[in-house]
């Protein structure tokens, strides 16, 4: 009898194995078919978070479990894994990871052997508290699966919590569970998704409330060129702790509203304001002395900080929120945004001018303070100065931005202005109108001996000027001519500048002028000359493909005006002049206008303007119509004909 049982067992195990092997192969085929272009697919991702009150503090622990499936030989590219954490505010514990390697009818489990933990360098930030747990998944290959789990302890409830339901690869199943102890009030909001996108449920159990979100078949994030970035695309949920009750029954406010956020930020400022010592008294005094108005003083001190303090990002622990003492920043001659803002505010104060610390989120942060009154909404500090009842926003980290205009990346964002320990103001940073962010060039030229010879005068304002100054600063003797020719080149690449004639003046409004020559541009045919008067097609009007789904990000309003004036060669008569064309849309417009000027001259003015930070997909058709018209109009030539000899 015993024998028989063993035999049966063997058989059934054998069959089991056989069908399991088929299962392994079948599952692999199924996923390869479902995701033909993917190296990896997420099988499941489960995040369980507990929020508890301990020792009158909120303790947050997050447990992550992640299983991935690798579908191609490129699997090996994913074997090095790095989990980053900011050591001051969080830590990672209980890390377990292994690979499941297919082996015929089974998966072999191979554990990760070594996990290193170290301080890692960041690309953008010179010094911060980022540490990483790093390890290698062993034997990661086509058909293998990985499992990863770990806990993350969050020491500061203000930094809680953002949960993304999206990734750079597709995920089959994702689940988020929040377990919140009674006495902790939370709220949550949805971004790029809504509650109906999830299987959502909430229930009470014991002294906890549970919130559960689940989602299946989550496609991978797809980015289009010049399109919205991760935060604007990825579906995510932001949960915030509003307040909590301590054992003694006291209610502690955390992130209820903007006032709470402000209170937390302002305590860091209060300390700096309280013990600021005078800095650079000679500089401040001399600027004050040579300035007639407050505006000139502000300009002088702003320029000094722009020119003398270099931007180096330092975000270590609370150092990421507390500005360093202005005296230290000045001694070092470098600092991060808040250090530079703080130094500027302090120097202005010494000059008798009140400027204010200003918290702000740059354009890549898609939240408003009302939606998200949390640190997720702030990543930058500037200074604000009120002139005739209107704020001017000063960003010393933008080294070349002209005085009086905000740095381009905060345009249209809401500024949170520090007025005192309990007092603040929110003000929208204006968007620089296209007319103030302008590139204008006037070129006057003639055609002689097969060449175009002329003079160009260029003026740029706003961010055009900022860019020009930044680029000019990078030049050296060896590349100067080449770069000028690349920036100001017209017609074709034979464009050549006479360096002796160059005048450059990088300033708030920048100027550039030079003499130039251009070959192989005018088309000659018998006794006729064909000249396209749009020598510089500043922008070539890209057609947005029909397949595009996401909006097109511009980030700024701008205008370009190029006037080209041709001296008609002696002995020639104008026989054909292209028509004037214009097209105007609330967000973009252009015009091309021809004019005969006295003294046998013809002028052609090309004007282009866009007043949109982001082109929405429903305007793509109008945009394409605009781009096609612009292309057609700017490819027209005038015709000159040689006069017949009498």
């Amino acid at each position, binding site marked *: 009898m015993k024998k028989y049982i063993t035999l049966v067992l063997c058989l059934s195990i054998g069959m089991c194995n056989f069908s399991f092997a088929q299962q392994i192969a079948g599952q692999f085929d199924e996923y390869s078919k479902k995701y033909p272009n993917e190296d990896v697919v997420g099988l499941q991702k489960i995040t369980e978070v507990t929020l508890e009150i301990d020792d009158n503090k909120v303790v947050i622990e997050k447990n992550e479990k992640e299983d991935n499936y690798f579908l191609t030989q490129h699997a090996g590219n994913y074997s090095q894994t790095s989990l980053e954490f900011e050591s001051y505010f969080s830590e990672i514990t209980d890390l377990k990871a292994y690979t499941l390697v297919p082996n015929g009818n089974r998966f072999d489990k191979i554990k990760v052997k070594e996990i290193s933990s170290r*301080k890692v360098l960041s690309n953008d930030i010179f010094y911060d508290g980022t540490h990483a747990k790093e390890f290698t998944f062993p034997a990661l290959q086509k058909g293998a699966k990985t499992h990863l789990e770990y806990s993350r302890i969050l020491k500061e409830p203000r930094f809680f919590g953002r949960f993304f339901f999206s990734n750079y690869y597709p995920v089959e199943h994702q689940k988020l569970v929040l377990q919140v102890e009674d006495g902790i009030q939370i709220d949550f909001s949805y971004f790029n998704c809504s509650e109906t996108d999830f299987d959502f449920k909430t229930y009470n159990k014991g002294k906890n409330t549970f919130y559960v979100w689940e989602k299946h078949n989550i496609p991978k994030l797809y980015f289009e060129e010049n399109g919205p970035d991760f935060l604007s695309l990825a579906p995510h949920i932001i949960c915030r702790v509003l307040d909590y009750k301590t054992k003694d029954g006291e209610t502690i406010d955390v992130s209820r509203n903007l006032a709470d956020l402000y209170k937390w930020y302002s305590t860091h400022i209060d300390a700096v304001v309280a013990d600021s010592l005078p800095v650079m008294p000679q500089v401040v005094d001399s600027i004050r002395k040579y300035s007639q108005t407050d505006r000139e003083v502000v300009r002088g001190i702003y320029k000094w900080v722009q020119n003398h303090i270099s931007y180096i990002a330092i975000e270590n622990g609370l150092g990421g929120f507390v500005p360093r003492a202005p005296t230290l920043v000045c001694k070092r001659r470098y600092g991060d945004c808040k250090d530079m803002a703080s130094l500027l505010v302090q120097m202005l104060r010494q000059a008798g001018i009140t400027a204010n610390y200003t918290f702000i989120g740059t354009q890549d942060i898609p939240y408003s303070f009302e939606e998200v009154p949390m640190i997720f909404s702030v990543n930058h500090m500037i200074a604000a100065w009120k002139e005739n009842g209107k704020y001017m926003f000063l960003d010393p980290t933008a080294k070349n931005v002209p005085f009086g205009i905000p740095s381009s990346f905060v345009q249209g964002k809401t500024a949170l202005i520090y007025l005192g320990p309990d007092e603040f103001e929110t003000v929208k940073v204006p968007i620089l109108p296209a007319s103030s962010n302008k590139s204008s060039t006037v070129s006057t030229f003639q055609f002689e001996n097969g060449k175009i010879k002329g003079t160009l005068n260029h003026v740029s304002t706003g961010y055009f000027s900022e860019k020009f100054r930044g680029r000019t600063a990078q030049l050296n003797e060896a590349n100067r001519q080449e770069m000028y020719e690349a920036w100001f080149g017209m017609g074709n690449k034979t464009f050549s500048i006479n360096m002796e004639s160059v005048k450059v003046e990088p300033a708030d409004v920048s100027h550039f002028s030079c003499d130039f020559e251009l070959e192989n541009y005018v088309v000659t045919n018998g006794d006729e000359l064909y000249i396209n008067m749009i020598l510089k097609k500043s922008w070539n009007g890209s057609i947005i493909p029909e397949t595009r789904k996401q909006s097109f990000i511009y980030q700024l309003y701008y205008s370009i005006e190029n006037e080209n004036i041709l001296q008609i060669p002696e002995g020639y008569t104008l026989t054909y002049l292209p028509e004037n064309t214009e097209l105007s849309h609330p967000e973009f417009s252009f015009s091309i206008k021809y004019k005969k000027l006295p003294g046998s001259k013809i002028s052609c003015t090309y004007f282009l303007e866009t007043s949109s930070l982001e082109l929405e997909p429903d305007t793509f058709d109008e945009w394409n119509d605009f781009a096609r018209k612009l292309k057609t109009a700017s490819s027209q030539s005038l015709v000159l004909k040689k006069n017949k000899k009498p």
Partner: protein
Amino acid sequence: MKIFKITFLFLIIAMQSAVGQESRYLVYDWNTTPAPWPLSKEDKANKEVSVLTHRIVQLEYDANDGKLYEYYLYHGRTYVNDKAGIAENNTVYISLDDVYEVVKAKARVILPNGKVIVQNMENLKKGYSQEMEADYNYFAFDGMEPGSEIELLYVVKKSPDLYGIIYTIQGENIKYNESLEIISPANLVIESKSYNGLPDMVTDTTLSPLNYLKVSIDTLRGMQPESYAYLDKNLGKIAYKLDKNTYSNLRNVVDYGKIARYTHENTYPEFSRNDLKAIKKIYDLAGLDEKKPADENIRLLENYLKKNFHFQKNYPDDLSNPKNILENKAYTELGALRIYTAICKNIGIKTQLVFTCDRTKNAFDKNFAIYNYLEKELLYFPEINLFLDPISLDSRLGLINPEYTHTDGMFVSSVSMGGFVTGIATFENIPAKLAKDNKTEMDIEVDFSTGLTSPKVHYVIKKYGTTMSSAQAFYDRISPERLPEIKKSFLELDDNFEVKNILVSNTNPEDIGQKPIVIEGDVTSQSFVQLAGNKALFRIGQLIGPQSELYSESKKERVQSVENLVRRAYDRSITFEVPEGYKLSNPEDLKMEIKYMNEEGKIQMCFISDYEQTGKIITVIIDEQYNQMELPANRFDEFSKVINAASDFNKIVLIFEKA
């Protein structure tokens, strides 16, 4: 060539260090009272100028553990003119790769008024760079102002690298006071070689009995990047290595012949039974068959391995052994070589190992053996005269990446000597492919029947060889959303053209070097035909897409010789029928000919365009070829004429006149 690291055990011999002499890296110091460096007005127009770089490499035996260490001293001083210069020099990173200890590190800022700000080195931070895979010490200079100088001096103790180091001394901008010293114990003789016009290092006896080599250059002019030249390769540099250990009477420590023997031994070992089983398994999985021709078998193997196995550089397990390779589906370079050679041996295909370096970075030097020149491993099959790159995914048998061609390499072949087999080194050229192997064929038909100003243009483009091999390698990884954009980019047209439909074929990795990628599609444009009165301007040149041009560079004096990445050719034809009611008034403008021949009367490079007319049908034929891999700098002018000719064709406008 990290795969064949040899431990020079003989070095670990406790030895008396030279008596009574203090080490150079300890004696050397910066000027205690530095004055601002005098610079000319021209120098000050640059955002920064390197005014001093002093390097000392001192090899020393440690009295305690008897091991050899390298002490590396770096002393640099840089003038910064403006805020752009400050921004680039404000932070300093010291690599701790292979470093045991930072012996000293100090830094200061010298202000324009002569005031000195000594930096507090307690601010030195440490972090790991995931990009560079190394730890760094780093800090930011306090108190920098426009017009100041920064000065940095540090010494690190590290494991010595004696198999070859190359210091690139020259830069893009002028540098002053560049110097290098190499000091080694009496028994260890260092050999150095200078490249690209730098002076040789000379022997100095003042530290006798230590060996002491030094060189210093007061003014080193900069070399700017130029098109069709590889700056990294052409910059002045100095290489050195250990040559002799006189105590153990060992000569030619780094020697190609020795390396050939080691690598041969490593690549063709006696495999264990398990390893042999793994090799057989791979043979079966790849579908090889002894009856098939050699090249077919090699292709099957290569396609199988590159599709299913992964090249892994850093890995805890030994991925050079066949059993582990099969289990992990991953290999190192050595592992890959072993699999290929073992399987080839089984089916009677002869293999040679080939080692070379990226010729765009360094010129292979067969007369100065260092590992830097052997960084890339290839396989050569003498019977079919083809090369294979076991690692690179965008190359296949017969078509290896061009930076490893048109260069010499060390070929290791097996020879039998008294019953045992070993490897011997020979030096041969790895030839670049011919222009016809990297050809682009482009057939363009313009159809004006859809409207004179809105013609339909049909393209059939075939691109052979290297140009599209990475597209073929990774085409299946492109996401469907991105695909239309990528396909459009294959046409290489400017923004004025809109693509109507496009078909791309031969896009499999197996097609690399076997079949050309074929792009077929229709485009339209609103702007390339214009009506002007009773004429129509047909911008025919735009149909070949924007071309590279060298107008601005041909105005400057050429410094480097011309070097092409590949030989290549373009055969283009454009066909159209002159629209009804019009005649073509300037067909002669289509005729262009720039051509240079070699002494044998063969074309070195050319751009020739001509047309034929049959009734109203015009066919334009363009023949563009670059057959010469290199040209001396004084022929740059000729080269740029050919390049510019293509760009000039791009500007041709035909004129249709009402008949």
